[in-house]
């Protein structure tokens, strides 16, 4: 036990700066929400800084949906990805699927949906 504690103390003292797995913290439109106005973009905020070039976000929508653009980092905040939506954005259910890589190379993935109902 004493060796364990000493080992941890040494590691904490000399280890590199820590990062971690990136989990979805907030989304706009909100996860599971129902909104009246068609959104122009999806914004995802994660719990860790990301490697934007290694992150993929897909948005699937109802028939007639114009599609989603590639995810872009929000200037000045490497934890946020912005995905522009091409018009038209008709009423219906949208599914957002994300797969991101945090700055320490940990990969996480997930999905959620929101609904547009004017």
């Amino acid at each position, binding site marked *: 036990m004493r060796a364990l504690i000493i080992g941890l103390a040494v590691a904490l003292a000399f280890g590199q700066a*820590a990062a971690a*797995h990136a989990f979805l913290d907030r989304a706009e439109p909100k996860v599971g929400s129902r909104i009246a106005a068609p959104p122009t973009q999806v914004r995802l905020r994660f719990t860790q800084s990301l490697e934007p070039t290694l992150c993929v976000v897909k948005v699937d929508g109802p028939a007639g949906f114009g599609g989603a653009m590639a995810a872009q980092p929000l200037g000045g905040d490497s934890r946020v990805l912005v995905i522009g939506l091409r018009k038209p954005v008709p009423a219906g259910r949208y599914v957002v699927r994300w797969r991101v890589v945090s700055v320490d190379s940990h990969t996480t993935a997930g999905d959620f949906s929101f609904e547009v109902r004017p």
Partner: protein
Amino acid sequence: MSIFDRAAPGARPAVAGGIALAATLPALVMTFGSSPVAAHGIVGDRFFPATITTDDPAVADELSLPTVDTFQTADDPPARQVDISGEYSKRLTSRLGISIDGAWTEVDAPGAPRASGFQNLGTTLKYQGIANAPHELMVTVGLGVDWGRTGDERVGASPTTALTPTLYFGKGAGDLPESLGWAKPFAVTGVIGYSVPLSADEPRTLNTGFAFEYSMRYLSSHVRDLGLPRVVNQLTPLVEVSLSTPTANGAGPTTGTVNPGVIWSGQHMQIGAEAIIPINAASGHNVGVVVQVHWFLDDLFPRSIGRPIW
């Protein structure tokens, strides 16, 4: 390691059955398809927190330190027992890991001098055979060893080494249909182990444990964001059940506890607390408590000690 594992030492040199089981289980799980393995209990969208009373199926670089519990023993009159324990787990490869655990115990019995000392050293070798992301499923096999004569018999440490081949599993409910979205944050993890002491005089025991969890993080990031504070979205309420049943070389009732509690999971560590409720008089008296601090070494030191060796 369960904090109650050490209550179930065993006896007998004939361990062929247990070893055969340990050798067969990896082959069984390797026959199934699997997904890449992430660390500290992440498979697909699912994050399994490190449970407190029962071991979880993850093979990870992590450190549980400290775990502190206190409860009244089943003795008559009951003694007050306090344990302070720790466990260090290290990935050898992305799927194979080893852990070492130890505990210091103090027993305060009425009318007797207070006794304290270390429990036996424990080691566990784990191999994660299945990590199925779409179904949020983990299956792991392991072999635990409780090393006899490394602890103090005055606090219950067994002089006999015991081997415990163990099956671990974790299953999230994220693959339920959308109409049952509220149930998707549910998950269950479990362990089934058979403890075989290397002595003819001590009982073999079947050790089982389950954890029923509801992930607020899963709810907010996959199902519905209720606008709750971030700290609430980082909670996992859970109920753990830990049981030990003597099966050979000595009869006795099943003993165990039901432990309701909650775990808060941050980016680099988690803190959990549970009540310890004995299931019968043979399991203890009154309600105890256990608190654990758990460190995600793969997140704290991703490029050094938090990586697999190979």
